[in-house]
């Protein structure tokens, strides 16, 4: 007898998706006891812009990681203000898994995340500012270098600057040179800052 691999998708396209696929039906299924049903509801809601508030609300109490991934994907694709605010709240989580889920989702949302990036990079919590720099890592946006330069020129917390320097070493241009040198002068007794700025300057050809 041939081995038949049970596919999650194949299984879930059956009973899990028999119920109504209209907006009201899908919103109700977000609270279903079966994670597979919640997963498919989260996925199918991505065509309904009005679903963001319900998806954000479900995300707050969802304990199944795979369902959270589907919710985050739908929020990423919907990408309105409510969706972005929900992702930002996830970024503030005390849970490292949730924080990284938010970072990964936000990286895929350059146009939606860009307007709030200034606020995130000046958040009172340095951990949130570090997460925001981490979001910039893969954010394909023309202002990434400007944001990073602003961070190393103005942020008082060494680890926020250190995270920004790491990224400047990858995406920076000669425009970052003066700020990198100023940063090194601001933290003269910090070996990591010296190491990272030297490396970044070398990589951008300005050592």
């Amino acid at each position: 007898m041939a081995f038949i691999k049970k596919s999650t998708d194949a299984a879930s396209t059956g009973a899990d998706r028999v119920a109504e696929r209209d907006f009201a039906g899908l919103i109700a299924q977000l609270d279903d006891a079966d994670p597979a049903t919640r997963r498919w509801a989260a996925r199918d809601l991505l065509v309904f812009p009005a679903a963001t508030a319900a998806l954000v609300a479900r995300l707050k109490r969802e304990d199944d990681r795979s369902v959270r991934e589907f919710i985050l994907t739908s929020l990423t694709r919907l990408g309105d203000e409510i969706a972005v605010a929900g992702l930002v709240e996830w970024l503030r989580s005390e849970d490292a898994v949730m924080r990284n889920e938010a970072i990964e989702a936000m990286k895929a949302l350059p146009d939606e995340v860009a307007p709030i990036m200034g606020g995130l990079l000046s958040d009172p919590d340095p951990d949130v500012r570090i997460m925001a720099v981490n979001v910039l890592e893969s954010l394909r946006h023309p202002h990434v270098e400007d944001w990073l330069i602003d961070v190393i020129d103005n942020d008082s917390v060494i680890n926020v600057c250190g995270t920004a320097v790491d990224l400047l070493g990858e995406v920076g241009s000669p425009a970052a040179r003066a700020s990198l040198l100023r940063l090194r002068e601001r933290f003269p007794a910090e070996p990591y800052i010296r190491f990272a700025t030297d490396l970044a300057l070398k990589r951008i050809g300005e050592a």
Partner: protein
Amino acid sequence: MKRILIVDDAATVRMYHRSILEEAGYEVDEAINGIEALEKALNATYDLYLVDVNMPKLDGYSFVRELRGHAMIPQAPAVMISTEAKTSDQTKAFEAGANLYIIKPTRPDLLVAHVRLLLGDTST
């Protein structure tokens, strides 16, 4: 020569720690997240792990938890290293199975002192 696996998604941080540990006489390997670190730990033996907290794919807490629960991986000390200075972060690290929690940025002399202590390298 004792081998240390550095697990960190930031290339500059990996290079910084590598330069410090190699200068102190250790052999160093790198992984960019917890998943890659687990794969490496299954295929090679390390004497110590230096693990960042926030990483994509598999974060540092989850990596150390997996490491501690994996019967096929020889156990070794794990130093968790993070920008986050809250007591709750340290508690989470120890609950996951870390032996030490260090706050970034690391100073070379302190890092080497901690590593030597955990490895029992009193003569080097």
